[in-house]
């Protein structure tokens, strides 16, 4: 049987122990004080609060158990040990905050970088579009220019064709004026009417109109040369007629040379009575045979 006294004694004992412990709590030891100060500094750091909540809580628990041990009056070895644990926990909280801070910066930098890449890509696309537009415009301009050039070429071709046609017509007109006829030897002009008097080799005044046309032709066609052939009728000796025909041809040549046609473009030949173009037994036939032929050659 346990008496009331026994219980009373027990209660007094516990109160005494409690009072002893309470006395210790009033005077925390230096290790506990230092740990509490360090914890307080870390806990007041907003970065640590924000980024290392779990670690800070663990540090707080370590400091509190150190303080309890201090109040319990644990020995120096144990208090030092717990002080070390508390100090390490506080350091861990600070390190964790720094790590988390770096991670947060990495994250926002990554977002910034992605934004920059997107910007750059957008700009590239924009620039490519602009280049494409410019190239298209260039192609259009080139096509316009090519079309203009084609028109120019066509116009030039038309001009040239017209010119050629005109020149061919002119040539034809000129030849018609010369009274020429096409033969195997080339273009032949026959000068008959009244160039020379009988047995004479001097040009008569009326001859100049026909010679003017030949001169005009040779002046405007510098690539052409002429062979001037003299002919006679059958009266007189062959030798005499050869000489006469030669002098007549030479008279025509001299006339042209005198008016500026170079000697190199003129050949003179006397053919006498060898090539009649009409019978020699009538005065009209003989008249036709007393002639000079101008053969135009290249």
């Amino acid at each position: 049987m346990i008496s009331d006294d026994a219980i009373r004694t027990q209660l007094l004992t516990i109160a005494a122990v409690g009072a002893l412990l309470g006395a210790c709590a009033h005077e925390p030891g230096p290790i506990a004080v230092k740990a509490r100060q360090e914890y307080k500094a870390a806990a007041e750091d907003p970065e640590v609060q924000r980024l290392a909540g779990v670690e800070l809580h663990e540090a707080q628990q370590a400091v509190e158990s150190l303080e309890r041990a201090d109040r319990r009056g644990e020995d120096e070895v144990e208090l030092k040990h717990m002080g070390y644990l508390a100090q390490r926990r506080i350091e861990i909280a600070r390190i964790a905050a720094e790590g988390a801070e770096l991670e947060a910066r990495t994250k926002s930098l990554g977002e910034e970088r992605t934004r920059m890449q997107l910007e750059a890509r957008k700009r590239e696309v924009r620039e490519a579009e602009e280049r494409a537009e410019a190239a298209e415009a260039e192609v259009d301009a080139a096509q316009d220019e090519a079309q203009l050039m084609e028109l120019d070429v066509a116009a030039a071709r038309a001009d040239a064709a017209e010119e050629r046609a005109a020149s061919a017509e002119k040539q034809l007109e000129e030849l018609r004026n010369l009274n020429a006829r096409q033969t195997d030897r080339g273009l032949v002009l026959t000068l008959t009417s009244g160039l020379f008097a009988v047995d004479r080799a001097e040009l008569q005044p009326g001859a100049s109109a026909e010679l003017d046309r030949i001169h005009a032709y040779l002046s405007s066609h510098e690539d052409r040369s002429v062979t001037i052939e003299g002919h006679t009728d059958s009266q007189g000796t062959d030798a005499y007629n050869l000489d006469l025909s030669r002098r007549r041809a030479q008279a025509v040549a001299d006339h042209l040379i005198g008016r500026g046609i170079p000697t190199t473009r003129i050949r003179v030949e006397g053919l006498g009575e060898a090539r009649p173009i009409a019978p020699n037994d009538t005065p009209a036939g003989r008249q036709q045979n007393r002639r000079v032929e101008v053969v135009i050659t290249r």
Partner: protein
Amino acid sequence: MRPKTRRRIYLMLQAPLFAGLAACATPPPHQAVARAESALVAAEKAGAAEDAAVSLRRSRDELGKAERSMEAESYDEARRAAEAAEVDAHHAMAQARRAEARRSFEELDEATRALQEEIRHDQR
């Protein structure tokens, strides 16, 4: 007060006193050692060997001390060493993670600078 209730109160009041005595007879700190070991392994995996060599070595030394104390049946010493080994391993782990974060940041920072340079170059 009935005798039975009285007896119960007496026992309840005695319990804390016995508990205090029991604390004096320290049991082997198997759990503390196990926690220290796993914390050390985790720190090594996180690359603490390069980035937190000092804390990691301290953790290993303390763990060695804890094991020797266990053999010597100095369980208080063993517990303290194991607790120190654990906290040092956590310390090493935090340093390793911070170093890794710093490397990532610096790599990205450099790459971003290069990108900025490239963009500036393109804009010219």
